[in-house]
């Protein structure tokens, strides 16, 4: 049943999408084809799909750990931005440093940046019992503004005609492409799949993963087992922050090759849907990451071929989350209409 619910949810989202398209005056089936099939019918666009899926898979897998341990980290977007910025320090401020070690160093700094930023809501939650949903979400906006200011200000490319972007990274500071002949997809996708598999091993096979699940399922039993809930807050946030930071630098050093004012079209928020659609299972997150990458890609394609707003992608993502959560609830519960009158059945 657990695995049926996302499939029913997806199907319902497609039906609702078809209805939406017909209201927009587009042929529903043709529109769905243009949205979901056409973008993956050519090799180069499959590459684009993998580029978009990489950050979604990375962050979705990290968020699985957060949500399974009842830590509601909504701020992956901000952690991704901070990872992208921290990872860009070397190529932007020290472009003279060259060599094969630069790229690994950038990835590590990206991870550290994401972890540091995710550490803030964890610290606030453990020290002051603040609600991590609010703090992690607010920190997203702060991160966006810091990025905007940095890229427009101190880090702006002196030779970039005043465009709000940093200098182009050198080749040694960029993630190499997998099959350059076919398309742009870089090794970020491989990194994402490997990280998701590692997190799966962590969750399924190790003592730490067992702790995560116990704390999420029953905090009182976790206490009885001697598991420290505060440590777990840090573990979950830092792990999710690490994957988000990695996603940030993968995006910057991969597809874009420079830091811009917008690193992501909301990957950090979409990753929340990825985690839930993937049943909070890191392997599920790989599949779900590809599905949601398709909604981004289809949204771009639909703008061109159908002439609809790019907000359609957001609508689809929202529909998917809505229907999956609704299915989860309705599979477990039954709607019952109750009367409140005594109905006499006549004398016995």
């Amino acid at each position, binding site marked *: 049943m657990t695995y049926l619910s996302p499939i029913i949810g997806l199907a319902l989202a497609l039906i609702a999408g078809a209805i939406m398209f017909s209201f927009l005056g587009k042929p529903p089936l043709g529109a769905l084809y243009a949205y979901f099939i056409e973008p993956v019918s050519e090799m180069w666009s499959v590459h684009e799909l993998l580029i978009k899926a990489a950050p979604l898979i990375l962050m979705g897998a990290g968020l699985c750990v957060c949500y399974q341990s009842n830590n509601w980290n909504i701020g992956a977007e901000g952690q991704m931005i901070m990872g992208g910025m921290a990872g860009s320090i070397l190529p932007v401020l020290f472009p003279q440093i060259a060599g094969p070690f630069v790229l690994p160093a950038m990835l590590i700094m990206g991870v550290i940046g994401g972890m540091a930023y995710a550490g803030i809501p964890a610290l606030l939650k453990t020290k002051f019992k603040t609600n991590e949903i609010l703090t992690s979400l607010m920190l997203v906006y702060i991160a966006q503004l810091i990025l905007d200011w940095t890229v427009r200000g101190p880090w702006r490319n002196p030779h970039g005609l005043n465009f709000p972007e940093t200098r182009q990274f050198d080749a040694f500071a960029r993630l190499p492409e997998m099959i350059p002949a076919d398309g742009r997809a870089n090794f970020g996708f491989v990194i994402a799949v490997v990280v998701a598999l590692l997190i799966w091993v962590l969750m399924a096979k*190790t*003592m730490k993963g067992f702790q995560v699940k116990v704390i999420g*399922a029953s905090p009182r*039993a976790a206490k009885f087992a001697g598991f420290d809930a505060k440590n777990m807050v840090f573990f979950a946030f830092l792990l999710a922050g690490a994957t988000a930071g990695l996603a940030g630098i993968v995006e910057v050093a991969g597809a874009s090759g420079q830091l811009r004012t917008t690193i992501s079209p909301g990957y950090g928020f979409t990753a929340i849907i990825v985690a839930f659609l993937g049943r909070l299972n890191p392997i599920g997150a790989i599949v779900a990451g590809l599905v949601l990458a398709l909604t981004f890609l289809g949204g771009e394609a639909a703008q061109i071929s159908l002439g609809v707003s790019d907000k359609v992608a957001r609508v689809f993502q929202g529909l998917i989350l809505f229907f999956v959560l609704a299915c989860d609830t309705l599979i477990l519960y039954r709607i019952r209409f109750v009367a*409140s009158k*005594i109905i*006499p059945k*006549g004398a016995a």
Partner: protein
Amino acid sequence: MDQGEVLLKLEGISKYYGSFKANDQISLEILPGEIHALLGENGAGKSTLVKMLYGSLQPDEGRIIWEGQEVHVPNPAAARDLGVGMVFQHFSLFDALTVAENVALALPPGKSLKQVAKELEEISTSYGLPLKANARIHDLSVGERQRVEIVRCLLQHPKLIIMDEPTSVLTPQEAEDLFKVLRRLSDEGKAILYISHKLAEVQALCQEATILRHGKVVGECVPGDETPISLAKMMVGSDIHEISPRDVAVAHGDVMLQVKSLSLSGLSGFDTALKDISFMLHAGEISGIAGIAGNGQNELFDAVSGERVSEEECILIKGEPVGNMGIQKRRKLGAMFISEERLGHAAVPEFALSENVILTRHGLDKSLNKGPFVSRRAAKKVKDDIVAKFDVRKGSSDPTAQSLSGGNLQKFVLGREVMGDAEIIVVNQPTWGVDAGSAAHIRQWLVDLAAKGAAVLVISQDLDELFEVADAIATLNEGRLSPFVPTRSTDRHKIGLQMTSGTLEQA
């Protein structure tokens, strides 16, 4: 025809959960003014039957006939309109509201709070159930809370009152007071359906009894004409295992667990603070702590187990100060803990039994940890050992904890904790919600463990249980612990007084 006289008649009521028959063709009759016992073990189907009468469940088959007319009771409001009132085992009161506010919530709207308060105080004084309308619930004792439930029920002018295990939270003295009220209600013509598994009180109070076992009516009788043994036989279906006592002459060994001047404030306004608690527990000894629920039992358990830390010197295990150590370090020293709640405390409800083995055995049972990894195969093996040794009955090979019955899960939890080298066993409400057969086994195991030299501390609300197994008994009242008195030199009456008065008899 005497049909008109019968207040309530059930004909062939059945309720199924899948293939499981919770109630199977149950029929009974209740006359006005009758105190009718519904007797059965936990899981016999008493609660299911009562929920159908009160409208929170619907029968799959059968007919409910109320005052000669067949009725359909879709929900509790409809039941109240008919004249069926219910006093729950677990109170349904809002702690932060006053007595009058709680009562007003259950009444049909339209009455001012003042009116409700006035009627409430009238009824409560006339029945000898003194209550202050503007007292807040969280300031009341458990007995007083029950009065609120009863008065709330009476204000709805019921013809039938259902009482679900009403004495499980009362002292013997409070129970006597309750019986007086029930007899008076019965004299006034109100019928009472009295649910219990305590034979003595059913014999003292009830005029008729219907006995349930495995969802079926297995007997109807006049309790006064039966003996406790004959009633128990009908209820359990076989003879109950009698505890074989230890050789009491065995001298008690070293001090295994010591609590010294332990004081802890309540974590929230609804917790009981512990006040200056001191005691010692020796090897080979079973000590019992009696008390009414909510007097600090859970807080004491948490402090001793290490789920809540205290001053380092307040708790010593085998002479080592452990007050500031966590629960797992205390387990490593040989202390084992069995909590009151099984689901969601001693076990994770939706986890398989083998995973629940890991919950408390990790780090202790070396086979379970392989570096950072968990050995599920080893966990399954430990689970199989526990299941075999402690007679845990289950449907599949590795079911979830929540799918086991209370008794079987408690046997599993107990087995998990004592499989290793348990030198100190602290158990809170060992047989709460456990069927009589399993309860007898569990008590026997505790006695056997002590005979082998373990120090056992039993915290229990069940006085019969404590008198059966404990060598010495103390009472916990509002967070204070009385001195331990040898079981032989005290009796239920004295302990009952201590449970409420708080004045400690100095020996």
